[in-house]
């Protein structure tokens, strides 16, 4: 139990700019039973509970905006079992994603979800946020790997859902409901994940372009050519420069865009696909498209891409990042729209992201202390959301709604969608003690009307 002033402040934030609120108490339970006791007490006293992994959330999902208890999992961070017959791994929620990943790979198995914060983030946090990562294009996201969960319901009951099963249609799919529920429906205390065999080979290609559109076209062309690479990552000029400032690995600062393309599988397939992707990049105007010289070089490039957001924050005091996602076919349009919006509102936006997934992270570089600029930033971000939705996309692909995007959720879901979700929340957590103030906003933002010509 921690409740010193320093502790309350240290658990008042996550990685989201401009959100902070002090909890009343910070607790580190040691097992499911202790979690259940805490939840029962909080339910009785109507005290909010905010489960928190490592606090790398990017939508203020782990900020205790209504005070209450921050629940930590640093005492519940063990890997419990590797089941070689069913190809599953069972861990406590506090296990670090990368530790799990390394552990299974030592055993010749593979857990693909790899959010950029995987060195820091916890599996529990990943499940609660349904995190994506660099390998999403081919291997999907966290939800595609969750087989079973132990949860403590908002009234303190312990419940096991799912199992080490290949198939299971017994009733509603509660696993899918819990994964990505951002701590609003209960506390996850044990997780069983699906594993797959570790691919034997992988190779990485890098392509640089003189325009964003060429890079975006390359992405569409690769998919259209029936290649599904593991990774198809995009960085624009601003991002390339920021990463280069941090890593000093010799990225060309003059390039307008770069693509990082990785394929895994059998030696033959990998070689074939990577050569094809390099050729497609060249056809679409790449100034340079080459194979990474070694696995080390490929790792360095991926590390650079993972650091993109934080590296961008070198440029201005505040970085506000979005997570707009559109169908793959619309990626070029989205990239173009972001550029135009930045110009229109005179704000600095750098974009990187999982281009192959249609999931971009336009990042506004600004300063929260400048009120006038912040107003323009807000308008720009509103418009980005609206354009994404108009293109058949969503407001968040992998970061979650949290508190930050809650005012926009109705834009995506509509009034009836919101009502259905509210009913689900209400029936599972009638006292609203589980991470209150997240997903559901008090007020929806006024919807933007974009006039023709934009």
């Amino acid at each position, binding site marked *: 139990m921690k409740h010193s002033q320093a502790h309350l*402040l*240290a658990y008042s934030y996550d990685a989201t700019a401009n959100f902070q609120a002090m909890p009343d108490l910070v607790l580190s339970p040691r097992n499911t039973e202790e979690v259940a006791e805490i939840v029962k007490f909080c339910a009785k006293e109507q005290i909010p509970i905010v489960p928190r992994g490592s606090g*790398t959330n990017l939508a203020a999902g782990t900020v205790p905006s209504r005070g209450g208890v921050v629940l930590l999992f640093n005492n519940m961070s063990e890997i419990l079992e590797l089941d070689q017959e069913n190809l599953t791994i069972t861990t406590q929620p506090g296990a670090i994603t990368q530790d799990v990943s390394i552990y299974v790979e030592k055993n010749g198995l593979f857990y693909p979800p790899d959010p950029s914060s995987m060195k820091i983030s916890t599996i529990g946090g990943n499940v609660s946020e349904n995190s994506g990562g660099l390998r999403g294009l081919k291997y999907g996201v966290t939800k595609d790997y969750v087989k079973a969960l132990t949860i403590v319901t908002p009234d303190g009951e312990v419940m096991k859902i799912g199992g080490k099963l290949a198939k299971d249609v017994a009733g509603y799919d509660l696993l899918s409901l819990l994964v990505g529920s951002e701590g609003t429906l209960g506390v996850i205390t044990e997780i069983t994940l699906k594993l797959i065999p570790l691919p034997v080979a992988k190779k990485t290609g890098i392509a640089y372009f003189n325009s964003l559109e060429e890079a975006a076209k390359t992405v569409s062309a690769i998919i259209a050519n029936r290649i599904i690479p593991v990774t198809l990552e995009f960085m624009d000029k601003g991002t390339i420069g920021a990463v280069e400032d941090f890593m000093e690995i010799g990225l060309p600062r003059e390039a307008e865009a770069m693509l990082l393309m990785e394929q895994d599988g059998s030696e033959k397939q990998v070689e074939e696909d990577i050569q094809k992707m390099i050729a497609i990049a060249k056809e679409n105007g790449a100034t340079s498209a080459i194979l990474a010289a070694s696995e080390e070089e490929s790792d360095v490039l991926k590390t650079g891409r993972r650091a993109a957001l*934080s590296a961008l924050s070198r440029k201005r*005091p505040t970085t506000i990042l979005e997570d707009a996602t559109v169908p793959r076919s619309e990626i070029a349009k989205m990239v173009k729209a972001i550029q135009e919006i930045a110009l229109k509102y005179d704000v600095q936006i750098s974009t990187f992201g999982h281009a192959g997934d249609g999931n971009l992270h336009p990042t506004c570089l600004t300063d929260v202390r400048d009120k006038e600029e912040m107003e323009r930033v807000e308008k720009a971000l509103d418009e980005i959301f609206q354009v994404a939705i108009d293109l058949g996309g969503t407001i968040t692909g992998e970061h979650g709604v949290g508190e930050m995007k809650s005012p926009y959720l109705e834009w995506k879901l509509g009034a009836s969608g919101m009502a259905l979700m509210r009913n689900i929340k209400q029936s599972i957590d009638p006292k609203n003690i589980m991470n209150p103030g997240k997903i559901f906003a008090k007020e929806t933002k006024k919807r933007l009307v974009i006039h023709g010509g934009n």
Partner: protein
Amino acid sequence: MVVTELQQRMQQSFIENVDEEYLMDCMRCGFCLPACPTYLVTNKDEIHSPRGRIALMKGMRDGDVVWDGSVEESFDMCLGCRACEPACPAGVQYGVLLEETRVAVEQVKPKTIAEKAIRTSTFDGVFADQKKMAGAVKLVQFYQKSGLQKATRKIGFLNLFPPFMKEMEGVLPTIETKKKRKVALKPKTTTVAFFAGCLMDTLFQETNRKTIELLEWLGANVVIPKEQQCCGALHGHSGELEKGLRNARANVDAFDSDSYDYIVNNAGGCGAFLSEYEKHLQSDSAYAEKSKRFSERMIDISSLLVKLGLNNRLKEIQVESQAIVTYQDSCHLRNVNKVFLEPRSLLQDAPGFEYKELIDAGSCCGSAGIYNILQPEMAKKILDLKMKGVRELQPAKIVTSNPGCLMQMQVGIQREGLEDEMQAMHIVDFLYDAIHKNQN
């Protein structure tokens, strides 16, 4: 909440001393967390992480927290190893923020009379004046030579000295008699000004002698400017930055000559501060240019030995590998000066040894200047973790690049009862011995 007058003054001191722009650089991504030794040994306690400390610095400034024991503990527990800096994609200048915080705290925090006396004798006395340091050390040498060391250890002879020196008691290096110098291999073409360092030049005099000898052997002309002082790092890290800068100016003056190709040091902790003179003195018009010249020519001993071609000399001596040598990074040499390949390359080429990497060699050993004296419990936890890796590797020599690390590793060896199996050594001593023992 009632805010006391002291707490108000403390907030004011944070506003005046801790730079808001530097604080805003942190976007709280958490990339620093896995790099922070105190975060890891406290089972991931956010107040003992760089991100948490920066949030607390900002909280103090903005008035979100008031000064109390819990805030103080968070700052005090920081090793200052700066492993968070290379891990930080946003380029947060944590070292600067920590120094500023310590200045902010020192200016307001009431001190006991005893603490004041120690601080004065340490920062204004011994560390400010090389002669006083030498005087104190002569006593230590007498004490060692006379054979009284073992007998008097129990009654704490070194109580006479500032507390940090007392702690060194168990692991003080022994004094060697002078050996005949080797003749230089080639005509001297490079002129090197040697920064002797207050600890290195007193308690570790032997290492300094060998440093000079090695450099001369490799054809360097070594000069030791007389007016040099303690680098000032300990002052800076303890919230006495102004006193540290007094030393910095003296050193910049002492080494300001066009005839020096390099200014070399052999203590990682000093080297980092020396290379940051430029940053600290950039707004001092009389010293901005001079300190830039100083910091640009600063080099650590391993990098210089590599430049002067020691690797080839080592390779010429062909001896079978008989034991394992490993390396514990000096945090500041690694994290501030970004030097970690050079010492390893020298050890890889050292005759008679096989180099093996120590697990987490880049993370702090817990010495951290005088941290092991101020925060013995945390330092012990960190050292225990380090020694776990050492036990697995079973090296005959653990080589370091800094006197603090050297003593801390030796403390670790003694604590584990491994004195008969292994030894902690300064890289210069190790290389010197490897050459002398294997070459006629």
